[in-house]
């Protein structure tokens, strides 16, 4: 159980391990992108952790990085093709960010730090926990950035219910703080959240 829950808070990939920040800060302009990117990353993370855990005795130490990159890049390309074929709307809205999962340090980081020295079952649990922690962190950053920066919360549209996917926040939508949707806003939100989490952990430590 510890393997599964550690990624959510204690070893949260964004706020504690501080891994994979570039794509994370780039996509969090809308909540829907945070969810899409988080779930996509979790899929690649689970597949690559399984594969690397299975191959750990086959891959010699000297070539482990290129071998991991081949495995990760293959799964990202598979995800990209499957999304283009079966969920074209999500694929169009995430655009170039799907390909960016390849260079997300979380995936290579977990392969290197965990899957290469643990069994398949533990590696799957690690991947799910890290994936959930990553997705929740992205959604939290995106929620703050989008509501302050654009005055909206964008989710998936549900046509049968007539829900367009966009919730407008009265008051903020007419006068949003535009800087929050830009790169500077991403760093500001990240910095404040990291500080808050450090403070909580410090208090716990005392």
């Amino acid at each position, binding site marked *: 159980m510890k393997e599964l829950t550690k990624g959510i808070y204690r070893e949260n990939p964004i706020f504690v391990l501080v891994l994979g920040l570039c794509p994370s800060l780039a*996509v969090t*302009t*809308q909540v829907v*992108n945070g969810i899409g990117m988080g779930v996509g990353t979790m899929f690649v993370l689970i597949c690559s952790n399984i594969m690397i855990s299975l*191959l750990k005795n*086959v*891959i*010699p130490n*000297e*070539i482990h990085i*290129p*071998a991991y990159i*081949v*495995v990760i*890049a*293959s799964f990202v*390309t*598979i995800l990209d*093709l*499957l999304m*283009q*074929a*079966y969920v*074209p709307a999500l694929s169009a*809205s*995430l*655009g*170039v960010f799907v390909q960016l999962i390849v260079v997300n340090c979380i995936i290579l980081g977990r392969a290197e730090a965990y899957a290469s020295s643990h069994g398949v079952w533990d590696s799957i649990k690690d991947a799910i926990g890290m994936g959930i922690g990553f997705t929740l962190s992205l959604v939290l950053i995106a929620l703050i950035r*989008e509501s302050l*920066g*654009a005055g909206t919360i*964008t989710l998936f549209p549900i046509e049968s219910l007539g829900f367009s996917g966009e919730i407008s926040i009265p008051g903020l939508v007419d006068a949003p703080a*535009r800087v929050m*949707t*830009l790169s500077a806003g991403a760093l500001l939100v990240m910095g404040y959240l990291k500080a808050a989490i450090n403070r909580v952990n410090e208090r716990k430590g005392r």
Partner: protein
Amino acid sequence: MNPILDRTIRLALICSVAALLLGFVDSMTAPQIAEHKRIELQNALNDLVVTGTAGEAEPQDGPVVTARYPISDGGAVTGYILALKGSGYGGEMKLLASYSLDGTLLKAILMENNETPGLGKKAEKREYMEKFTGRGNQGNPIPTTKAKLEKPDAVGGSTITFTGVSRALAAGSDYIREGLK
């Protein structure tokens, strides 16, 4: 075995398995992806025609205009849909736009692009193009800077996307007015 040869063989094996798997997934998804693209293009063409029907694509080799589809209504050509390319914040953007014969922009759609979600990507929305439609004829050019807009606030942020879209649309209008050259 020589350790270098051993590592080379192992890496080559991993790469071949990955290549096989990718080839399989590609062959499985390629027809679906092509079909989505075809439907998307067809929907966009249908949406752009105000009256009449769009004909077959005629490829063009201009710097901005890459293809044209004549719109005919009752046998006479009443306008053209142009496939345009512009340069945005995330690289090349593809647009489709319909014009009447005097160069007036009737409708426009932003197709493939890599603009930033929440900022430049807003150009995909129908309302975005409204500030350009009905313009482009003699004495009423398509605005290519935000200063020339009646309501500049409507495009807050993303100046590069705006400039890319508006210049491509203006070039399309010029192409029609200059006798399809």
